[in-house]
């Protein structure tokens, strides 16, 4: 009698732990959310609309931020672009970094693109109206909120999650890379998703 009960408890505990882990992996913000679905989207670049499906066949690194961010966003984009430059040129062509601003009021697509160009990694800057952004943000499990701050003369600040979403060549959301991940580790995450010359007969 005792033993099966104990075994059952262990099984339940393991299942709960596994479930927590799985959710933890995609956990951002103040509430635990179901595993995000990701999916296609269309946002505005300085050269017109850009959709995720434009990059079929490429691995996409998707990052949400804003240009008023002096620290977190440049750090993330710096690491992503350094990882991109570490790749051999043929593999670079298979990776597209997208920087999505959740601050369309201050970040026009033109300004955003100039900001993105600074990182020398062919990053595309994207933004949209709030409703479109909110939908994409939610589907990828990201979070942001506009915070009016009386004590600051910037007017408002933007709280945001700082994960990079990794989307495979078929447009599927694979994983998220935490803020502060060094370029070498980003490369390690990317490598299995890329087509290597020796793979193709």
């Amino acid at each position: 009698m005792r033993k099966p009960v104990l075994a059952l408890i262990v099984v339940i505990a393991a299942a709960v732990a596994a479930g927590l882990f799985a959710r933890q992996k995609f956990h951002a913000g103040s509430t635990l959310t179901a595993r995000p679905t990701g999916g296609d989207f269309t946002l505005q670049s300085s050269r017109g609309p850009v959709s995720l499906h434009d990059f079929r066949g490429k691995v996409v690194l998707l990052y949400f931020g804003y240009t008023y961010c002096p620290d977190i966003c440049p750090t993330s984009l710096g690491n992503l672009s350094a990882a991109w430059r570490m790749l051999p040129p043929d593999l670079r062509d298979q990776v597209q970094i997208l920087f999505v601003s959740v601050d369309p009021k201050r970040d026009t697509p033109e300004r955003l693109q100039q900001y993105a160009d600074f990182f020398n990694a062919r990053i595309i800057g994207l933004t949209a109206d709030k409703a479109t952004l909110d939908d994409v943000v939610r589907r990828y499990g990201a979070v942001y909120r506009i915070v009016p701050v009386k004590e600051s003369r910037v007017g408002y600040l933007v709280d945001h999650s700082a994960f990079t979403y990794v989307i495979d060549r078929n447009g599927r959301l694979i994983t998220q890379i935490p803020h502060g991940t060094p370029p070498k580790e980003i490369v390690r995450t990317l490598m299995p998703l890329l087509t290597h010359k020796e793979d193709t007969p």
Partner: protein
Amino acid sequence: MKKTLAALALSAATCLPAAWAADADQVQVIAPYARAVPPTAPASAAFMTLRNRGDHATALIAADSDVAEITELHTHAHENGMMMMRPVARIPVPAKGETQLKPGGYHIMLIRLKHPLKPGDKVHLTLRFADGSTKAVTAPVRPINGMSHMHHGNMHHAH
């Protein structure tokens, strides 16, 4: 009486510098730098370590710079993966201790830059401490991590 007063005044005068050393003199600024940012970036940040050699606690209460219209003291809080930047009224520096201003934490926020900050530029900062004393600091502009050997306008070049 006059003599006593004079003696008192004299002792007060000689005691003052030692007992009431200005916070700015007690705080050593180590490795200050400001971060290079993209040309259209509206803001940047300056970082440094503040080491307090004195035996009373102080705080950085304000900063000014020659490169931004607005200079504020900020910190970052990370909660459940959410990055929250907030202005703070003071950055405490404990007695005989130090406080680091570093990416992801306390920083001097440079808002509405008058010109883009490029590596090699210098930012002149004035730090104001709890007792009102001030200290001038020159912070060199350093590239963003991973961007150290990049050159402007040199797109897609290989390493």
